Every structure is written in structure tokens, then in C-alpha cells.
């Protein structure tokens, strides 16, 4: 195998493929990228056995077709440190890879291509199309709410629900929940309800910012597969039952208060500066058209921020939130103004803006007794 490629393009390909490679691979070969070079095209594959990717490799010239399995992290680092525009990659019969970049050359040990796990072919026949922008929107507006730490299995992924002309994605960590709904052209009559792992969504997002208008998706009981012009990705689905999310989205709230979105983000961020890890909470007091955010950290001090809340003219209402949860939701909600629906200080708040995004946050309370 021998080919020449643009260093920058090769680096990008390795960064995408490398995001799938497991950093603590059980088998060294899973920390590698599999390069396959044909006369007219080339591709790089990687897998951690949960997620697999096949990525089109932009080559300038193929000298000799062939294949090689190269350590992802090391090759990525070399490509990053080199400065020439072009690099040449060459594998010898002794299992070594030679990389030449300008006046630098590297020789790397490689693994045997036959031992590399087989990456499934994309099942074109079973696939349906989804508008790329809509898929990106579904992912961006929800995936941040997936549980960060390993908790209940179903919380480590987002639910993708397709029914009629609607695709919705829901993610929750048990404390807040984000849901986005997009209208789609579902002429194939696809129905789906699967939990996609958070990591797969991150990889999807990486390859989606490209030239396609439409991406192809295939789903079965165990896997979700996605195909763009440049990439094919398959991921195992999360096994487990997603919590009954509909039951926790308040249908009605006792009252709803409108805020300027930017102003509210700023206010929560400011108040958050005077919280600490043990008491990560910001209190919001509503009274007579004013909202007052306050926070105190025993070891640091206090913060108090006043905001206009013209919708609230009733009696005093106090509720407290983890400011990170609120800010993360406000960042993805669309529109200049946002609505916060509230009922009681121990009941969920519902945040909405323009469009179909819904965000539900449970408050923080003082424990009685």
C-alpha cells in the first residue's frame, strides 16, 4: 500500500475515525485505524466494538493499492506535528508503516489487517432518508441532557422516536429532560423508538456538518446505522427501557413567566459564580414583575441579580435550580424570549421558546427536618 494525501485532510479523517477508537483498548488493534486503499478510492475504518465508522479518505495519488492497520493516536499526533502540505504513507512487507512529510520521516509498527474486526456494510435497501439539518437539530438540542456519569442504562442515550411525519429526540439524566420535535417527510412510513448512545450522537454530529442535504439511516433491533457521502457509522443501541418521559412533562403550569433569553442566561451565570459544588443552587424569587436571582457560598460570599419579569404580578414565589441545568437549556432554546412555566417550588419547571423544543428541570429544595 502506498499513497499520497494532503496532510490536513488526512489529519481530519484520522480525527473523526479516531473519535471512535477506544482510548483504553482491551486489544491493541482496537486502538488502530484500518486503511484500505483501492486504485480509485480509499477509506479509514475504526471501531471500539460498540461504534464503528468507515470514513472516505481523501487521497491525492495512489501509487499502490493495499491495506494497513495503524495506531490511531500516534499517527494523529504525527500528522498534527508535521508541517508539510503533503504526506506519503507506505506499508512494507515486514508490517511497518513509513510516513514521509517534507524532510521528516517516521516508521511505525502496525497490526495485521486480517485481525481487524469486520465493519458491517450499510444496508442500503433497508434505509430511509432524513434531512441533515433536522437530524443535527434533534441531536444538538437534546444530547447535552444525557447523563454524564454511568447511571441507569437508558439515561446514557437519547431516545429517537419516529412516527408519522414527526421525528423526536428525548434525552434526560433523571433531573432534567430535553425534547426536540421536527417535522419530517416520512414517505417510507418509518416507525422507530430506539435509544441511541450519547457517544454515537457525538460521532454523528462530527460527520454531519458536511455536504449532504439528506442522510440515510437504517435501524434494526440492535443497531442504528447512518450514511453520509463521506462516512458510514454503525452503533449498538442502548438496551433498556426509556422512562415514561411524557408523564413528567407538565401539560399545564400554574403560571408562566417570560424572560429575555440572553439576559436570563447572563443572570444565572452571574449568580452561579457564588455557588459551590456542595450547594450548586440559585434561588429565584418572583414578586410584582421582578425576578431576583440569589446565591450564596458559605466560603465565598453572595450574589443577587434583579431582572424584569413583567408577566408575574401575583404573590411571591420562590424556587431554586442548579444553574448549570438552566443555562444549558437556555442555550439551545430558540427565540429572543423564553417562557418558564412554574407550579410549585418542588415541581418541575418547563422552559419553552420559539419552535417545538421543550425543556423540563426539577428544582433543588431544602430538605425538611
Amino acid at each position, binding site marked *: 500500500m502506498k499513497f499520497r494525501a494532503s496532510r490536513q485532510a488526512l489529519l481530519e479523517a484520522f480525527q473523526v475515525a479516531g473519535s471512535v477508537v477506544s482510548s483504553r483498548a482491551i486489544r491493541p488493534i482496537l486502538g488502530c485505524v484500518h486503511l484500505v486503499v483501492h486504485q480509485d478510492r480509499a477509506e479509514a475504518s475504526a471501531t471500539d466494538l460498540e461504534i464503528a465508522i468507515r470514513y472516505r479518505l481523501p487521497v491525492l495519488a495512489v501509487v499502490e493499492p493495499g491495506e494497513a492497520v495503524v495506531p490511531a493516536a500516534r499517527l494523529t499526533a504525527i500528522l498534527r506535528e508535521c508541517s508539510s502540505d503533503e504526506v506519503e504513507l507506505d506499508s512494507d512487507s515486514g508490517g511497518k508503516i513509513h510516513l514521509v512529510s517534507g524532510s521528516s520521516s517516521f516508521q511505525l509498527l502496525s497490526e495485521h489487517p486480517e485481525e481487524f474486526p469486520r465493519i458491517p456494510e450499510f444496508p442500503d435497501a433497508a434505509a430511509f432518508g432524513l434531512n441533515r439539518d433536522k437530524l443535527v437539530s434533534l441531536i444538538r438540542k437534546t444530547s447535552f441532557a444525557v447523563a454524564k456519569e454511568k447511571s441507569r442504562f437508558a439515561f446514557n442515550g437519547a431516545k429517537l422516536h419516529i412516527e408519522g411525519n414527526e421525528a423526536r429526540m428525548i434525552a434526560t439524566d*433523571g*433531573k432534567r429532560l430535553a425534547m426536540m420535535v421536527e417535522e419530517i417527510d416520512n414517505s417510507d412510513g418509518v416507525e422507530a423508538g430506539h435509544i441511541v448512545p450519547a457517544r454515537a450522537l457525538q460521532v454523528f454530529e462530527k460527520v454531519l456538518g458536511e455536504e449532504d442535504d439528506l442522510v440515510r439511516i437504517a435501524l434494526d433491533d440492535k443497531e442504528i446505522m447512518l450514511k453520509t457521502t463521506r462516512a458510514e457509522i454503525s452503533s449498538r443501541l442502548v438496551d433498556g427501557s426509556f*422512562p415514561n418521559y411524557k408523564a413528567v412533562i407538565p401539560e399545564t403550569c400554574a403560571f408562566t413567566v417570560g424572560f429575555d433569553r440572553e439576559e436570563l442566561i447572563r443572570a444565572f451565570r452571574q449568580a452561579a459564580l457564588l455557588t459551590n459544588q456542595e450547594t450548586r443552587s440559585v434561588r429565584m424569587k418572583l414578586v410584582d414583575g421582578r425576578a431576583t436571582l440569589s446565591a450564596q457560598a458559605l466560603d465565598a460570599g453572595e450574589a443577587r441579580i434583579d431582572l424584569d419579569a413583567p408577566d408575574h404580578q401575583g404573590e411571591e414565589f420562590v424556587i431554586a435550580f442548579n444553574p448549570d441545568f438552566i443555562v444549558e437549556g437556555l442555550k439551545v432554546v430558540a427565540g429572543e424570549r423564553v417562557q418558564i412555566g412554574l407550579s410549585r417550588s418542588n415541581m418541575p419547571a418547563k422552559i419553552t421558546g420559539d419552535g417545538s423544543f421543550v425543556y423540563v428541570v*426539577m428544582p433543588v429544595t*431544602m*430538605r425538611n427536618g
Partner: protein
Amino acid sequence: MTAPRTILHADLDAFYAAVEQRDDPALRGKPVIVGGLGPRGVVATASYEARAFGVRSAMSMARARKLAPGAVYLRPRMRDYVAVSRQVFAIFDGFTPLVEGLSLDEAFLDVGGSRRLFGDGETIARSIRQAVRETTGLGISVGVASNKFVAKVASDLRKPDGLVVVPPGEEARFLAPLAISRLWGAGPRLVERLRGLGLDRIRDLQALAPEDLRRILGDRAGGHFGALARGLDDREVSNQRETHSISRETTFARDVCDQARLERVLAELARDVGRRLRHACLRARCIRLKLRLPDFHTFSRQHHPARAIDRDADLIAEGRALLHRLHDEGMPVRLIGLGGADLVEAEAQEQLELFGAEAEARAEGLQDALDRIRARFGAEAIRPLDDDAPSS
């Protein structure tokens, strides 16, 4: 460079036994051994007269009786010891706000900020020893040094009733002739291993290049012991008086193999730990189970639940899961213990959950009701049916 710190380590001499000898003149000059007097009892403290027979704390009472058959054996009077301990800590507090109590009879004091008021480390140590003697009639040994480790070694060196001062800069020379087992964290296995390499005294470690020691012991241990051997220790004296763990353990009169019985005992311990946690308004972020086998091998396992807990049912479930990891049916157990550590204040705010909020509220209500009934009618008055292990 910052100025050297002045740290005192103060340790009451043979504390429990000394209180007994103080309160009963007939015991003075006699070997006195305080501890559990049942068949499985363990020595808590031996007076210096008893130590001459080879009796040590943590030794089984049966062995102590063989070594010192003529000694006076007493059950501990904790209430009295706690009262004396309070008097002693009140004296410490008079000299500095930075007092880190290690147990009833032992504390670190950072007196760096008190020098202008009370004099240098040695002067303060003398004042403390005199005040403790006058107030309680007990002897206390004090070590003075620039850090915790050296201060602790110093206080131990001339017990009982000793005062050892290690001036700043003299730490390494002071430690050089001492045995490696003096190093904090050096257990018998490590000492044995180093002895196999011809390393016996702290000076032998000082003579090694740091990278050689790291090669022998690994990066972490090598770095740790290399620094200690040179008398370096930057741990701060922490005056947080909060309880760092709440635990309960019980030693069986006869070894227990039956897992169902162990689970029942564990549930009792868990309820007691839970009651004490809730009483102190604390929750445990870490649950620890301890098992001791008949040969005194002691194992422990810990688990961090997703959130801090204080309810009996949660503690029992955690304890049981740990027991199943640590214990195989039929394995004889001499002692079982359960504790909550990494404690946080329960009054701190609580992030509510979206799902299962009702179940959570119910569990909370149940625990409150149980606590109220137990407060009124006693700990044995009520117990949920599913609390106990399936009877076998």
C-alpha cells in the same frame, strides 16, 4: 520558601488504663488491661506495667491473659474517658484554633500562629503537658516538629511522659537511626521486603536515590516513602471537627458462617448507623463493610452510591450488596462492621428527581414515621417486614 511550620503531636499515655489508675489508687503500679472481657474481647489499652509482659492494644484478650495472668482486667468506661478527653481538648483549644483530633487521646496542633502569644513550639508543648497534668492528673507525650509525620514519630519516641523536639532542618538526621517501620504507612510486608534488600533503617532509604526507591516500590509508594524518609510531609493540620465516618461493628461470641444470619446482623448495624446519621443530620456518600475472619484477617469493601444516603433501607441494601461481594456462604466470620463515610450535611439542598419522585417521597415518609415510633417506643418497637434477610 515559606517559613517552617510548628506542629505538635500530643498523645495521652496509655489513656484508658491511666484513667483507671488515676481513679483507683489501688491499681497504680500494677499491670492494668482495659478491653472487652468476653471470650472474643480485644485489648483496648494496656498500662505500661502490662506492656512489660508484652501485652499490646488490639491483641486478643485471650492472648493477653496468657501473657499477663496476674494483671487487672477491666471493661472500658467510655463515658468517663470521653469526659477526660473533652478536658484535654479544651486545653489544646486554648493554644491554637488548629487542632486535629485523631481519637479521644491523640491530636495534631498547628501552633505556628500562636508563637507570639505563647512562645515557641517547645514552650507551648511544656505548657500543654503541665496543664494536662494539673487538670486531669494524666501524662501526655508531645512531639514538636515542622510537620505531622515527624511530630508523631517524636511524640512516640520517649513515651511515657516524653517531650521530643525536632528543630527545623534536623528532620532527616532525627529519623536516620530509626527503623523503617516508623514510616507512616509502612506495614510488615513492606518492611520485610525492604529488609530482604538489606534496607533496615530509615538512613538506608535516605541513602538511596529517589528514582531507585521508585523503581523498587513503584512510583507512588516510592515517592511517598522517599519523602517521608527525608522528613518531608506537607499534610495540613485540619481543624474540621466534623465526624468523618459513623460506623458500628460487632464481634461474635462464636464465628458465624451463615450468610442469612450475617445479613440479619448487618441490618441491625445498618439501622443503628442510619439512626446516628439522621440524628447528626448527615448522609453518607460512601458505605463500607468490614469483615474479620477467625485468623484476624480483616477485609473491607466500600461503595459509593449514586447519592448520599441516610435511610435504613438504603443502608441495608448497600450493606447487603457489599456482603455478597465479600462473603461466600460458609465462610466463618468473627466480626462484621458497617459504616458510612465521606459524610455530607443532610440539610444541604437536594436536587429533586424527575422520575420516581413519588416513590422517593414515600420512602422518606416511611423513614420519618419509623424514627418517630422508635423514638417513642424504643429501637425494637417496629421494623419493616422486608428489612431483614430472607430467613433460612
